[in-house]
């Protein structure tokens, strides 16, 4: 069973969201997702300043196995991206919930967070796969 931290919110498409407490939210992919994908070889990120809608594909995680779209879990403006991943995409495998974060969104509507899953809900969706 992979690690699913209880303080995070999750999208069924395997992104996690962390509330930074200042109106911004950090996004990455779950431990389970990186296990499914295998060794990461490229990560394509949005640009700072991009406006994204919830559910919009805005990044790509490409592993030895497959290229996988990453969807924005909430709407807003991209305010930071993890540039370290350019040279070290394997960080997503090694530290999915920490240094392997992908981008940070300034939420345009924080109520969208209510549409996401908590750790328990996300764990059920994995079990059903």
């Amino acid at each position, binding site marked *: 069973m992979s690690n699913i931290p209880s303080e995070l919110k999750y999208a069924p498409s395997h992104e996690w969201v962390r509330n930074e407490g200042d109106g911004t939210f950090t996004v990455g992919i779950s431990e389970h997702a990186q296990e499914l994908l*295998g*060794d990461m*070889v*490229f990560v*394509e990120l949005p640009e700072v300043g991009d406006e994204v809608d919830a559910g919009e594909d805005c990044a*790509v995680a*490409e592993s*030895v196995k*497959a*290229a996988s779209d990453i969807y924005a879990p909430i709407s807003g403006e991209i305010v930071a991206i993890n540039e370290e991943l350019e040279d070290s995409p*394997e960080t997503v*495998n090694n530290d999915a919930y920490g240094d392997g974060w992908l981008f940070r969104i300034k939420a345009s509507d924080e109520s969208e967070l209510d549409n996401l899953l908590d750790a328990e809900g996300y764990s059920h969706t994995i079990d059903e796969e």
Partner: protein
Amino acid sequence: MTSKTVLHAKHLEAGAKMVDFHGWEMPINYGSQIEEHNSVRTDAGMFDVSHMTIVDIEGPQAKAFLRKLVANDVAKLTVPGKALYTGMLNEQGGVIDDLIIYFFSETFYRLVVNSATREKDLAHLANVSSDFDVTVTERPEFAMIAVQGPNAKAKTATLLNAEQQAAVEGMKPFFGVQVGDLFIATTGYTGEDGYEIVVPNDQAADLWQQLLDAGVKPAGLGARDTLRLEAGMNLYGLDMDESVSPLAANMAWTIAWEPEDRDFIGRDVLVKQRAEKSTDKLVGLVFEEKGVLRSGSKVIVDGGEGIITSGTFSPTLGFSVALARVPRSTGDTAQVEMRKKLVNVKVVKPSFVRNGKSII
């Protein structure tokens, strides 16, 4: 119901992620396939290849049988232990399987064929051999471990006895020798130095452990695929199959055209294809930007279209490479459909890395 090799428990012990590989439960990786790949390129790694099928051919007409069966000519083999890579073809000149043949004597040869094609291979061998005075014997009592990498031979040497060390000392590439209970061959599927070792099932786990203790890293099917692709070695079922001529699969070098009166299966079709230059060809593709070339993608070239037969990210090179079957007219560049857009790729010879170094 999947089959397990005798090393199954050793894989689980090493933390392997197991997958169903054509009916065999095999390790895809032991954590990171890229790290496993790099171990083989820079040091020493080992693969459980016990799922592969070993078949011994014995009898007064063993040589005549194999001269009929495969596109290469076993009459080239005169030194005991020498090995030959080739394909066995159907009457239409398509590849039933690729295989390695080891020569012991003109009445005794050993074949190693793929696991995914085991049943049809055995059926074909039974069919063709019925006209010859030979016996065809599968050898499931053996496991096989491939030890590969620049330090593979030195690390293996630490656990061989004096007799075994003497037998493999200075052995040239593509040879095999039976010494004691082990059959040790200088063959492989990675483009690196090393051995493939055939070992009785009941000794396999001990040998695996000794290799682990000698510092050889276990590597899974994931790394095996990226290594063989970098080395430009075909994978049956992707780069060729029964509908593909060896001439369209970079296997022309495995066909012996002389002597002209050797009537191997598929010869007539190949002779015609060769004269008319009617087949596609297998080339290498290189894409140095972000993104990975994938098997099945369409390749657009001047005046035609082809297909990527195998594609991957090359851990050694840091970008993506692929094998593609394309029209003969293909030049130095092509375009590939990648995630709904067209990207430009370089066309090169179908071989990318040898002995740890780029050869593009």
